[in-house]
């Protein structure tokens, strides 16, 4: 029996050996995947990243193979990865086909903008890079934090819930806002808010009247740093927004895009930060 076990263990280690060896040159695609690999302490194995991987700051020192939806086959091969771990949606298909021919393992982790989605994502990344135990520990920790935030916001009575309008851009005074089934919608829910726009999916250009009718209590935006975004006064004076409760109270919340919308290890923290911005200490 013991002998058999030994054989089984040896076989198992033989089978896992090439996989473990294969995962020492990782190309990390997608901001949240990169964050997870760093959080798992496996950053030494990353050889390159995509443009969206901007956190932690050390990641930005790695070679950048370009935007995840427009990967160049030779650029990807040039960093000589033996494993590519990616958020959903990497491409184009031709590039992925060439990588397959070069015998590079490509793992796409599922994306879902919910607490469970983050836990699944961490476990999927852990399994892909051969760190399932570290991933299970991290997933438990993150889940605990998410549950804690959820418990806190659950105490808020429905009548106090803030209606939040996520504005992706205001180019030319036109408001591109988030409907359902987006990262913005997900984080608003985690922070105990109500998405002011639930009639459509994805990000859409809004008419002024639709924004007015949505009656948001708070405007949520990405903080792009520097003087890029529109200042609060200009934003709140837009015809669409000036009549909303958000304009009356001057409520604009700006947060770093990857932190707010990444759905990675920092999301519980981001949800708590957003919840505090909406409701004060909760």
């Amino acid at each position: 029996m013991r002998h058999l076990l030994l054989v089984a263990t040896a076989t198992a280690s033989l089978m896992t050996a090439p996989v473990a060896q294969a995962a020492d040159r990782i190309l990390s695609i997608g901001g949240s995947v990169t964050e997870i690999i760093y959080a798992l302490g496996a950053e030494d194995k990353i050889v390159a990243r995509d443009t969206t991987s901007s956190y932690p700051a050390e990641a930005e020192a790695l070679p950048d193979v370009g935007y995840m939806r427009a990967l160049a086959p030779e650029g990807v091969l040039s960093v000589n990865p033996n494993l590519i771990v990616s958020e959903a949606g990497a491409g184009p298909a031709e590039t992925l086909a060439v990588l397959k021919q070069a015998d590079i393992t490509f793992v796409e982790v599922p994306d879902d903008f919910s607490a469970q989605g983050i836990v699944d994502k961490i476990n999927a990344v852990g399994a892909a890079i051969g760190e399932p135990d570290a991933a299970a520990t991290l997933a438990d920790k993150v889940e605990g934090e998410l549950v804690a935030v959820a418990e806190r916001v659950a105490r808020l009575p429905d009548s106090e819930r803030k209606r939040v309008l996520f504005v992706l851009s205001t180019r030319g005074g036109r408001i591109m806002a988030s409907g359902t089934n987006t990262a913005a919608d997900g984080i608003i829910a985690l922070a105990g808010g109500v998405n002011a726009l639930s009639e459509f999916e994805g990000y859409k250009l809004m008419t002024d009247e639709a924004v007015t009718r949505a009656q948001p209590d708070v405007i949520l935006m990405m903080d792009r740093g520097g003087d890029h975004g529109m200042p609060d006064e200009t934003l709140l004076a837009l015809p669409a927004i000036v009549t909303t409760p958000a304009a009356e109270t001057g409520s604009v919340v700006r947060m770093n895009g990857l932190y707010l919308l990444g759905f990675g290890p920092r999301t519980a923290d981001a949800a708590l930060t957003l919840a505090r911005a909406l409701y004060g200490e909760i």
Partner: protein
Amino acid sequence: MVALSDPSPGPYARDIRQLDRRILARRLSVVLVVLLALAIVVNLALGASGTSLWGALGKLLSGQDLSTMERVVLWDIRLPRVLLCVLVGAALAVSGAVMQGLFRNPLADPGLVGVGAGAGLGAILSIVLGGLLPVGVQGLFGHYVTPAAAFVGGWGSTLILYRVSTRAGRTSVATMLLAGIALGALAGAVSGILVYMADDNQLRDLTFWQMGSLAGATWEKSMIAGPVIVIAIAGATWLAHGLNCLALGEAAAAHMGISVQRMKNAAIFSVAAATGVAVAATGGIGFVGIVVPHVLRLATGPDHGTLLPNAALLGATLLLGADLISRTIIAPAELPIGIVTAVLGAPVFLWILLKRRGMVDQ
């Protein structure tokens, strides 16, 4: 003798100038062939991965096997990419030259007959509504759904335009131009509706498609595009004499024995075929079709007999140059090639115009 010493530009001097230009164009062809060959070698040799062409050739000659990296980079990535680059560059430049000859307008490009707008509409339709296709069809065509849709869109709009502007077997070039603008606007509007319906990811796919890229070059794509483009370019070159006669006007061309209507048909369909396939394979790549024929016309004159083959050579070489820049300048990432051709093409075009104006003002 007399003509040479005669300072006034008489008919003989004009002939001699024509002759000079023809010799100049021949020499230019030789230079362009050399440049193209050079560009092909450079594009095969350079790339983000640093894989050595010479090392691989050495290995092949001494009967060794290539490493997986060498095989994939040289055989599956660079070679089909160079081939597609040559085909598409030649197709765009020749189509531009043919359109400009046909419309007798230096601003004409294949976009005018609706190929661009139609192809764009087809591509957008496939990206936004592709998910509605039966799974079997998606599986069958895989990532060829968008190129195929772009091709069908380009051809479809050209056919509609051709029908609209043809009455009793006569195609009115002026009607075609105006209808092309109207159809372009319509295709743009329908595209706009689809863009509005598109989700975040589809929008990004669209944006990248519109900027054009050769990163998706495969042997299959080159093998599909190759025969169509080669036949279309050969057909266009065959039209050279007719296009020269047309420069004098339709009536004059008809008197010179040109079957004007047949020529129009051939020109329009060769352009639709060549650019339709090119756009389908690479997305939107601007400026090659306008800049290349212009540069050549200024250098060696408007004779289509030399202009068309030289345009094919220069278009291919320029696109290879642009692609080399696009895939090395920010390596390991890549710049969409449409951006490179516009950034390089627009200032060159402006410079040519200013220079020409300077000559006119003197």
